[in-house]
């Protein structure tokens, strides 16, 4: 049953990622991205990471996707992939290079990490263990996160303000 769910979700993940890469219209790419993020949330559920699945749907599939769609609506793109290709060599090389990268990653993963037999105990209850960890061992990074988000807010406001100032 779990294998079945994994295979279905994996197919959706890879298919929607291919959709992001292939579709010319950025809106279609953004919608494929939403599908991709939601199915990754499903994969988190199969791994009993319920909190991350919920956070994934809220933060990624909710906030970030909406941000992308807003940006696309503001910019109204769709005509930028024309004109002479200045980086044609790079694009020709991209597929074989990524293939080599994937091959290397596969070799490394097969040889090293996953051979070590780890403790096969299940993760103690999703949300509780994660919360305990965040508020004890990772308390300082957790607090720094708020500073990071504040910096992002201030930075975005500064960028937006300069934009209106020049016009």
């Amino acid at each position, binding site marked *: 049953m*779990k*294998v079945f769910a994994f295979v279905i979700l*994996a197919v959706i*993940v*890879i298919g929607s*990622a291919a959709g*992001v*890469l292939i579709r010319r219209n*950025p809106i279609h*790419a953004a919608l494929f*991205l939403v599908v*991709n*993020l939601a199915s*990754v949330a499903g*994969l988190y559920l*199969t*791994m009993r*990471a319920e909190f*991350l699945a919920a*956070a*994934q749907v809220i*933060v990624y599939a909710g906030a*970030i996707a909406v941000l992308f769609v807003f*940006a696309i609506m*503001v*910019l109204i*793109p769709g005509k*930028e*992939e024309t004109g002479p*290709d200045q*980086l044609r060599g*790079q694009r020709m090389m*991209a597929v074989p*290079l*990524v293939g080599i*990268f*994937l091959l290397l*990653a*596969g070799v490394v*993963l097969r040889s090293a990490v*996953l051979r070590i037999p*780890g*403790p096969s105990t*299940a993760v103690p209850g999703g949300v509780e263990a*994660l919360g305990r*960890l965040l508020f004890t*061992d*990772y308390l300082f*990074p957790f607090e720094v*996160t708020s500073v*990071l*988000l504040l*910096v*992002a*807010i201030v*930075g*975005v406001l500064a*960028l937006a303000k300069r*934009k209106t100032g*020049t016009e």
Partner: protein
Amino acid sequence: MVPASWYVALSAVLFSMGVLGVLIRRDPLVIFMSIELMLNAANLALVALGQRWGSAEGQALVFFVMCVAAAEVAVGLAIIVVIFRVRRRLSVDELNVMRW
């Protein structure tokens, strides 16, 4: 129970597709989406390996990666919008002002 190596393999494939997107697309928005794909692939590997070693630390790291991704997308999209306002075009190949 699905072995963790399957999740890690899926994550490697997803990451490679993100790299491919960054390399072959010219639309900065789609390049950003590909970066999101890569971050997601890393998150998937973190959760799978944390699961395998029976600790929730992988999930804690994914939490921080999500925060960084949210901040990065907000700032990045703001920069793209500003660039578009200034140059009226949106091709990354032309953005070589700061290139040496």
